């Protein structure tokens, strides 16, 4: 075999390895406004699904940079009017936080490779307002799983105009075993929350003001996108558009 043939084969192998690395996992995101009515209060449901080739587990997620329309009324909503300390949330979960700091909830599914098989675990997610930082709203994302791996991770993030960045910590399934791989997450901002206000010295429950949609829909709809980063060094950038309600722009 000539040198040129060896070089050609080597280059072809490199190309195949690069291609399979970038195609290791694919990500799709979902966004739902309930109700989808311009100018009206709504709950915002966000989700993503990470898929790996059959029989494989996706590379562990290390970060998400989520982009949303900056004129969604998240900051002007009545959500997150108290804050929860990160240490409190880590130690005791969202139930230990002030009710007025709860901003939403959801669930997550992770896959754990165990002895050649893939086990799936469902965990709960809580969205909680944390102490603000440099004038930014701090959103704490707490994920708690119980079985087979009991763990709670708190991911602090800053809510900037149209941008939310999360650093996802690596969680070991067992000492020395592979890290957990997140495969599906669904969270809802707002929704069925109960806050308390003080009236004549008594605490009275109320429903906080939800996120309000803009009165006009951007041309082409509300655009969402995200950059997902994985431990294997790959990234995925899925996009999603929520179409404008019929007859409205």
């Amino acid at each position, binding site marked *: 075999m000539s040198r040129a043939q060896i070089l050609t084969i080597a280059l072809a192998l490199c190309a195949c390895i690069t291609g399979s690395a970038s195609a290791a996992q694919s990500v799709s995101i979902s966004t739902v406004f309930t109700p989808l009515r311009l*100018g009206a209060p709504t709950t915002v449901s966000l989700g993503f699904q990470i898929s790996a080739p059959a029989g494989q587990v996706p590379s562990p997620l290390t970060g998400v940079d989520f982009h949303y*329309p*900056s*004129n*969604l*009324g*998240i*900051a*002007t909503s*009545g959500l*997150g*009017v*108290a*804050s929860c300390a990160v240490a409190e949330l880590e130690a005791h979960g969202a139930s230990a936080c002030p009710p*007025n*700091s709860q901003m939403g909830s959801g669930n997550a599914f992770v896959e754990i490779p165990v002895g050649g098989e893939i086990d799936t675990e469902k965990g709960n997610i809580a969205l909680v*307002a*944390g*102490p*603000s930082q*440099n*004038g*930014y*709203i*701090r959103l704490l994302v707490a994920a708690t799983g119980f079985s087979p791996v009991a763990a709670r991770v708190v991911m602090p993030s800053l*809510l*900037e*105009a*149209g941008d939310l960045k999360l650093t996802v910590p690596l969680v070991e399934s067992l000492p020395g075993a592979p890290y957990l791989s997140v495969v599906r997450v669904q969270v809802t901002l707002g929704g069925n929350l109960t*806050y308390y*206000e*003080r*009236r004549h010295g008594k605490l*009275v429950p*109320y*429903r906080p*003001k939800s996120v*309000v*949609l*803009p*009165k*006009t829909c951007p041309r082409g709809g509300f655009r969402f996108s995200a950059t997902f980063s994985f431990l294997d060094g790959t990234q995925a950038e899925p996009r999603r558009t929520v179409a404008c309600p019929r007859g409205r722009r």
Partner: protein
Amino acid sequence: MRFARWARGFDRSTGRTAVLAALAIAVAAMGIPPARAAAARTLNVRDEGKLRFITSDGSELIDEGDAAGTLPGNLRAYFVYNGEPTVSARFTIEGHSGSISGKAKARLSNPNSSEPSFRGAFSITGASGRYAHARGSGELFGVFIRRGEHKYWLTVQAIGKITY
């Protein structure tokens, strides 16, 4: 010596008239318009308002209420807060003698609370009636209150100067 005598005998009123005429000619030659008949007035403004929530449009809150102080009237504010620490607003005060519109930028602190406060600056962008051609600027202070289901309002205080 002859000039000094002429100067001493020069009538004072004649002199003033001559000087003014010369100045008017000079100003006209330079293309500077003559001063307006009415002198501009400057007001030290200190106004406060408690604005009730009217509606919202995404990240913009529209609040309205009575402004009390130097320039009383109905105050309508369009307050934009999208999560960045800098908030902005447009406002209009409709009074008996005219209206004043302006814009403001402020820095909001303690956003994860039921009463985030903000502090910044405002400037006048337009006016009508008595305050037509008004200009001015000053400081703005406020609190974005969201203490309960029906406790959702803005309190604002503006301190500054306007000239009209």
